[in-house]
């Protein structure tokens, strides 16, 4: 961009700092000369760097300044010198000296050690008391200021350690070894130097009174904006991020999937999460000794442990289906226990809703199509691929003319709309469907098949007790969470329900 245009873009802060840069380069200098706050100068410098008007450099420096004791010693003198001044040729009692010099106990010991080392004093012991006298070496010391004294006086302004001369360095090392006299800070010193372009921009004359920064109601009322120009913005610049409120991303995907089913003519089913085993297992022709009813897979409710069975008619039909079968079936052939069916569980699949829905249907309701999308539970340890609470998308088609090819048709269409170009079907096994299907979809990136869940046609032993007669019922219940992982670029399924607010604020919307 040319210099003139750049000059017009400058923010008021930049306009204040830029002229100073022809003389000053240090950040602290700019702050004090401009009268702006640190952050304002920093912001102006960064903007100008973005515009390539300046080069912003950062140098790490060691800075020495007076510490707590040092500040006092500058006024009152170093304690050892005060001590020395209080001495005479004749040995005196130490207490008297300390009093005269105005020192405290901690300082006295340091003074004694230091002065003894320099042979500036003699120490005699008389009984318990110490008597101290100054030596001629000591008197010499008092004749001119010591290196330490001189150095301390230069520290009214903090100084860079690297700028110290050899004698100052010597004094610095001595003082630095002592307690709280001087301190050394690591400072990052920022300097800004005008670039060639910057020098040109600095020469451009901008009349600030002719430039509008922000439009105000007053300007509009008084027409004051006429004849002036607006400060140009750098419209390519990044602005600070904000985030708004939104639905949970899984919910946005759920709503989309629900719409697919509704558009295909499916009605939604809902229901409770706690169910009796009767609905969760028995009504679905899962024998009472089937391993899936084992403790390890299913969450059983501790209290209240059991619920009630539905009306006798349906219970006796289910009992018969298990014990001796329905029309044309020999059943599981065991003694069905009502008590086992009363056991409360957290639903292990949304298929429980299908069973309950079918039980309510009359012949005149057919054909009918239902779907559900809801939470299910499996008692397992959480890992990247498993959650103990997960979503399932359920569907049933109750239609006297339904067949296996329709089942594959509905599923293929659903998965296509969910973003999977191809789906394939493999044989599977579930106690309540025959034939049973496992659905694989082609991973859009990895181009591999992966398993998404089960489907099938309900067995006559499921349908007949619930509906009163056998009608083919197509049914499916793939896990939903795995279907949407890829879209949200999530590899660990636990991240779906982590409620990490940063993730919730930043994650993209479901758009298919």
């Amino acid at each position, binding site marked *: 961009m040319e210099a003139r245009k750049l000059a017009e873009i400058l923010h008021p802060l930049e306009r204040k700092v830029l002229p100073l840069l022809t003389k000053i380069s240090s950040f602290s200098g700019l702050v004090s000369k401009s009268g702006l706050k640190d952050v304002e100068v920093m912001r102006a410098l960064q903007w100008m760097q973005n515009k390539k008007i300046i080069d912003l450099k950062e140098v790490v420096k060691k800075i020495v300044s007076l510490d707590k004791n040092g500040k006092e010693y500058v006024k009152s003198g170093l304690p050892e010198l005060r001590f020395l001044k209080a001495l005479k040729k004749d040995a005196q009692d130490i207490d008297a000296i300390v009093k005269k010099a105005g020192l405290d106990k901690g300082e006295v010991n340091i003074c004694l050690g230091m002065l003894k080392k320099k042979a500036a004093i003699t120490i005699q012991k008389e009984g318990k008391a110490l008597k101290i006298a100054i030596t001629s070496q000591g008197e010499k010391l008092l004749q001119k200021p010591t290196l330490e004294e001189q150095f301390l006086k230069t520290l009214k302004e903090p100084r860079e350690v690297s700028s110290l001369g050899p004698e100052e360095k010597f004094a610095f090392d001595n003082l630095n070894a002592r307690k709280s006299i001087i301190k050394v800070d690591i400072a990052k010193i920022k300097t800004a130097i005008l670039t060639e372009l910057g020098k040109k921009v600095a020469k451009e004359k901008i009349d600030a009174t002719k430039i509008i920064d922000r439009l105000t109601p007053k300007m509009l009322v008084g027409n004051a904006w006429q004849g002036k120009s607006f400060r140009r913005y750098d419209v390519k610049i990044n602005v600070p991020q904000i985030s708004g409120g939104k639905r949970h991303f899984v919910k946005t995907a759920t709503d989309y999937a*629900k719409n697919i089913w509704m558009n295909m003519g499916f009605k939604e089913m809902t229901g409770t999460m706690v169910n009796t085993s009767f609905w969760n297992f028995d009504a679905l022709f899962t024998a009472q000794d089937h391993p899936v009813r084992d403790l390890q897979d299913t969450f059983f409710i501790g209290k209240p442990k059991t619920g009630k069975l539905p009306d006798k008619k349906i219970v006796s039909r289910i009992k018969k289906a298990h014990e001796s079968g329905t029309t044309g079936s020999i059943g599981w052939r065991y003694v069905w226990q009502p008590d086992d069916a009363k056991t409360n569980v957290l639903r292990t699949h949304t298929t429980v809703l299908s069973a309950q829905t079918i039980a309510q249907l009359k012949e005149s309701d057919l054909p009918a199509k239902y779907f559900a999308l809801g939470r299910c539970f499996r008692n397992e340890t959480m890992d990247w691929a498993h959650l103990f609470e997960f979503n399932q998308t359920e569907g049933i088609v109750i239609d006297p003319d339904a067949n296996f090819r329709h089942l594959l048709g509905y599923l293929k269409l659903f998965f296509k709309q969910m973003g999977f170009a191809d789906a394939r079907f493999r044989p599977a096994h579930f106690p309540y469907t025959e034939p049973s299907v496992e659905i694989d979809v082609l991973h859009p990136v990895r181009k591999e098949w992966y398993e998404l869940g089960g489907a099938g046609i309900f067995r006559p032993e499921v349908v007949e007790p619930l509906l009163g007669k056998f009608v083919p019922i197509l049914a499916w219940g793939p896990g939903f969470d795995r279907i949407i992982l890829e879209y949200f670029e999530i590899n660990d399924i636990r991240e779906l329900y982590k409620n990490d607010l940063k993730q919730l604020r930043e994650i993209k919307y479901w758009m298919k």
Partner: protein
Amino acid sequence: MPTVTLNKTVFEKLVGKKLPLNQLKDRISMLGTDLDKIEGNEILVEIFPNRPDMLSEQGFARAFSSFIGVKTGLRKYDVKKSGQEVIVDKSVKNIRPYTVCAIVKNLKFDDEKIREIIQIQEKLHVTLCRKRKKGAIGIYPMEAIKFPIKYMAKRPAEFKFQPLEFQKELTGIQILSRHPAGREYAYLLEGKDKFPIFIDANNEILSMPPIINSHKTGKVSEKTKDVFIECSGFDLETLNACLNIIVTAMADMGGEIYSLDVKYPEGYGTQSIATPELAPKKWNIDLKFINKLLGLDLKENEMKKLLEKMGFGYEKGKVLVPAYRADIMHQVDFVEDIAIAYGYENFEPVIPNVSTIGEEDKFETFKRYVAEILAGLSLLECETYNLTNADNLNKKMKVQLPCIEIQNAVNIDYNVLRSWMLPSLMQIFNENKHYEYPQNIFSIGNVFKENKKAETNVEEFTRIGVALCSLDSDYTKIRQIFDYLMRCLDLKVKFTDKDHPSFIPGRCARISVNGKNVAYIGEICPEVLQNWDLQTPVAAFELNLGELYELGQRKA
């Protein structure tokens, strides 16, 4: 599902054909087994629980060979009479009533074969026999035992024998506490005054089912050629299937099957039978039913071929079901086998033209509206678990509410169903302290309470929790949100001054609509904030959406 490991070389020899790896993988998957992996010379497959006959190399290869068309149709297994007897004593009637037995001769045992047989036995124990609950299998070297064999029950303190792989003799009681298998399966004999045993004509104990064989008479070795096999348990059907699966696998290894007579005493309620009974069962099949369910137009001859690919025979409207198939309950079971033989990949998916009207559940729509209103106020929706722990629900919130416990939760941090929503939101604040404030969130979910009127004795309510966490979150801010929501839903509410242990006294209100309590609202008290390790104030409300929806409906 049980996983079986197959030796690829043995498998291919049994199948009678070697397929390229890709094709092998594909065909295994499309036969109706879940291929785990093929690694070197090992094939790992998961067998679905309806096909215990495929749990052995022999059984699996038999099905596979038919499926790929090498050897199709019903397999015939010869059964010769051994003339031996097993006598069932009436003492087992109330303990472990049934047994079926067989003899298999001329098996050339080696390490590999012993491994295979142990694998079949173990897998059947876990699956078809339901961890030995329904049935248990014993295999004995013929050279160590003398017929006739007696199946009876005795007081466990009154007999002793040396259990398999154990140094000394133990009584029946001692086995349950000292032998590893005894300890594992002791519960299956719990409370019985007598334990079942097989005992031979020399008065040597063969085994104590379903626990353990004798070391002396029940250990198969490389020297063994002929074996006696028994299955004991509670359901003859299961026992027969189990025995048939084992003996046919042994026959496929090269053994010869011999039957023997199992004699039940008079008045036992069971006929004496010669086992194993390997004659195929006949089932009616209706071609129309098959075609209708599959959406196909198969001719009888085509159906016959497909049945044969699955190892069945077919004669004039009847399917001949091999004796090792334990899963046929209804002709619908043939439908699946026919579909597998036809090839799932060969079905053409269609969308039928069935006119029905799609509809969202009304309450679900209502929940969505509420969420959208709140999202419009810059609140973030969170999805929370129904499961949590009592500490979160009660102790940290300074309340004592009864909660529904899970009996068997694996994870103790998630062992109760939540009784209210706000703890879920507090947990989110606790886990997000390192992020930018304000943190204004909400979550819709179910809460659970005991209620004798419900079918499960548990009642579920759908509630919403809304919480603001920032330096300036206070009663006014949360009230503004609540009031806005009520205006959007066109509901009039009444506020009552009422304290709640989780909220600051005097800054908490109970809210009712038409005299019904639907919500409470206020500023969370400092102890609760500290319990959640929060240094930022929180204002919140919890609202019963189900109740609110019904009130709205009634109004309409």
